[in-house]
């Protein structure tokens, strides 16, 4: 994984784990790699991984089990909420960028529909 040096790394690690959970590479109840292994895999400082995991624990996305390690939450509602949150973030960026270009709400819907249609044609 390649990090953007302008953004705090713990934050990028959190996002990386969010995405792993949402796309199902880390399923509910799965055990996360050990802190040091994660640090080696991502080539980052152990303290940084610990900070990221600490926040994920307080967000209840992962659950620590004493002596066993960290596990992805089995509460599907939490994961569903997380997914919605990330989608909203993406939509927000898209929406704000288009509004800055003076594209109206109706046009945004049209452009998006049009874009999706074109992508479908390219793929088929």
């Amino acid at each position, binding site marked *: 994984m390649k*990090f953007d*040096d*302008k*953004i*705090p*790394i*713990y*934050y990028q690690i959190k996002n990386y784990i969010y995405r792993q959970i949402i796309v199902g590479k880390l399923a509910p109840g799965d055990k996360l790699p050990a802190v*040091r292994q994660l*640090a*080696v895999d*991502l*080539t*980052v*400082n*152990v*303290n*940084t991984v610990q*900070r990221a995991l600490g926040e994920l624990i307080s967000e209840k996305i992962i659950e620590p089990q004493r002596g066993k390690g960290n596990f992805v939450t089995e509460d599907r509602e939490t994961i569903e909420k997380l997914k919605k949150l990330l989608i909203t973030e993406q939509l927000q960026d898209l929406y704000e960028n288009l509004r800055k270009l003076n594209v109206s709400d109706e046009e945004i819907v049209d452009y998006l529909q049009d874009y999706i249609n074109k992508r479908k044609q390219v793929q088929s």
Partner: protein
Amino acid sequence: MTNTIEIKNLNYRRNYRSILEDVNLNIEMGKIVGLLGENGAGKTTLMRLIAGVAKGASGSITVAGTDGVPDKKSAISFSEQLNGFNPSMRIDKIIRFYEDVYPDFSTKKYNEMAGFLQIDEGLRLSALSKGMKEKLIIGLTLSRDTKVYLLDEPFGGIDSMSRKKIIQSIIKWKSDDAVILVSDHYVSEIASILDEVVIIKDRTVYAQKSAEEIRSKYAEGIEHYYESIYEGNDIDD
């Protein structure tokens, strides 16, 4: 947090020229710290002083609670340039020397690193290329089990693939309480493993900042922050 390295009012002159002035620096236990500065800024001198190799400075340097040179030497693994060895000495002999002299030297660690660094132990020291010699030095330095590692521009001539593997083995092997002080004049390769950066400028410690704080506070990379300090347009606090 306890400090593993404490430097107070350090001044150092050589040949009537001031090299370091009024250096005060604390490094907490367990931190990986990047020591940044231009060529000639005094990074190597500072490391040599911490290691007890250079002498004659005023002020105090305490490492792991001690300021005696012999105790310091056992607490510090310093990436020295192997200049004390006869150039015709074979690499395997140098490794045996490290095993004999340093009780904390781990042959297992060395062999694991030597595996991916591909150091030919049958060669003589004088036959090594610049990059090979640097690989040997970092392999030997990291194979000791100490409280402090001083790595003086360890990656200059090392190819990027080996660099990445060395950095990964640092993460893998570093004990939680060990401090690593690593100097470099270009930062991007090691930025992701640093807890802090210390910038040496105008013969002293010009700034000491947490790496994540630089990113969150200024939305800047370590490299850019460092350059902006050297170009004299400090980012406002």
